[in-house]
């Protein structure tokens, strides 16, 4: 039995671990086109800020790979020939497979305005992108950041910490309106301004201006021209569905897979950012762009490829991230707003967050430490915790384990509710 994995990301690595947990000798081949192999993609943000060295981003040493006993082929898969069970590579010999996993991830949605291909227009997908940004970021020069979500802020912070003057353009009225509420957006924006970022609301770049093929500025819809030395953008991501589409697999926004991570071809699986996974509990198929979801999906796909029928049970999507230096946890379903800065899903994002069911909102804290809860009839449906993270762990458990919160619901909804204390007490009583 020959199992082949396309894509050397966390989903692919987890799949190999899963296969090896059941079968220590079967042939495994991994094909990857990133010259840097497997590394922590979310960690690229900390590489930009200088909190860590690029070498730190590689979680595995060659010894670890040897133990997993697979063959690594550096190359790009060009075609899947399903009838012949063969992969064609761009450069190099074809590879046959019995079971195939497509774990090719997602890529930055392109900025579709004139001038977007000029030198100095940058995105953040790969290690190479991060290196390019660092090479071009010059102390004292001006950068313009366009887009929304986590990655746009990571670009902003990275460029700022490299000494650039950063202007952050928002098309709408506030930051990440699809997930954060008004107050939360204001907190993040306030902190950005405090550290020296210049924010521009309702500012839409419609053209990037260049000279000798290099960025010199941006033209806004209202006619203003802003000078700059580079433009960094993060307006969302697109799952890399081309391979699957060419091969005639069922594709919607991502590659459609059932709860076994199986495509409409029984020998082909998909996992991670590229997969749009059917969730039996909602009857819908959703995209995630979360490291832990990619890992869990890859693992489940690997078990299925090794012959152990395994249903992927989607855990409550959540992410812990830093927004303008403020640790923020997003759990469950939290938002529903329209976000003009993003097309579809962004990095570190889940479509599930935006499925806002019937919920009441309870909140407390108006400065850096803030908690917002989305309360269903009996359950806590979602939460956003900013700043102090003491509540984040209990809240995650309360949401993911569907704990009956009726005993504290009324108290949480009372106007003067001290949410922190109520949850802490409830959590302590639960644990006893």
């Amino acid at each position, binding site marked *: 039995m020959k199992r082949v994995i396309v894509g050397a990301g966390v989903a692919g690595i987890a799949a190999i671990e899963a296969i090896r947990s059941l079968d220590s000798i079967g042939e495994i081949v991994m094909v990857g086109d990133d010259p840097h192999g497997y590394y*922590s993609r979310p*960690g690229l943000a900390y590489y930009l800020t200088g909190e860590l060295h690029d070498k730190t981003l590689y*979680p595995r040493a060659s010894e670890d790979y040897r133990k997993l006993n697979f063959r690594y082929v550096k190359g790009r898969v060009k075609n899947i020939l399903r009838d012949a069970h063969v992969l064609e590579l761009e450069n190099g010999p074809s590879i046959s497979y019995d079971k195939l996993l497509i774990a090719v991830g997602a890529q930055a949605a392109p900025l579709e305005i004139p001038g977007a291909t000029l030198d100095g227009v940058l995105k953040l997908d790969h290690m190479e992108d991060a290196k390019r940004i660092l090479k071009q970021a010059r102390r004292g020069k001006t950068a313009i950041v366009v887009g929304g979500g986590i990655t746009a802020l990571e670009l902003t912070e990275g460029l700022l910490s490299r000494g650039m003057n950063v202007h952050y353009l928002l098309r709408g009225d506030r930051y990440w309106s699809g997930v954060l509420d008004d107050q939360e957006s204001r907190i993040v924006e306030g902190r950005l301004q405090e550290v020296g970022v210049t924010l521009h609301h309702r500012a839409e770049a419609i053209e990037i201006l260049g000279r000798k093929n290099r960025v010199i500025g941006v033209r806004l819809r209202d006619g203003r021209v802003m000078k700059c030395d580079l433009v960094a953008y993060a307006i969302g991501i697109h799952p890399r569905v081309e391979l699957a589409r060419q091969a005639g697999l069922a594709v919607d926004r991502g590659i459609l897979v059932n709860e076994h991570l199986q495509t409409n071809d029984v020998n082909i699986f998909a996992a991670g950012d590229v997969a749009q996974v059917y969730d039996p509990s909602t009857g819908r198929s959703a995209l995630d762009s979360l490291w*832990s979801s990619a890992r869990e999906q890859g693992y489940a796909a690997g078990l299925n490829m090794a012959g152990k029928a395994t249903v992927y049970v989607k855990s409550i999507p*959540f992410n812990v*991230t830093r927004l303008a230096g403020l640790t923020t946890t997003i759990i469950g379903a939290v938002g529903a707003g329209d976000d003009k800065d993003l097309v579809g899903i962004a990095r570190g994002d889940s479509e599930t967050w935006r499925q806002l069911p019937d919920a009441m909102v309870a909140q407390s804290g108006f400065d850096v430490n803030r908690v917002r809860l989305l309360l269903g009839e009996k359950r806590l449906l979602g939460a956003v915790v900013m700043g102090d993270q003491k509540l984040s762990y209990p809240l995650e458990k309360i949401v993911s384990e569907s704990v009956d919160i009726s005993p504290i619901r009324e108290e949480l909804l009372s106007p003067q509710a001290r949410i922190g204390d109520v949850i802490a007490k409830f959590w302590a009583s639960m644990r006893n």
Partner: protein
Amino acid sequence: MAILGIFQRGPIKHAVLSSGQVTPDPARCVQCGICTYNCPVDIDVRAHAWRGEPVIHSHCLTCGECVARCPRGALRFEKTDLFTRRES
């Protein structure tokens, strides 16, 4: 010398934090390596975080450096079973 330096500033924190061991929550970890990078005694905390195993390591100073630096709140100090049993 470096080791000496660590031990010199270590004891105070040690006294405060030694009541547990570093315990990861793999679902929060993004394998960035900041923990490993900052561990003064070169423990590969990230590898523990991947496997979801607490850092039970004779060299661990329980200095809290990894816990404090993790940008994802993936690490915390937790009392070990061993410890609780001993206490009760």
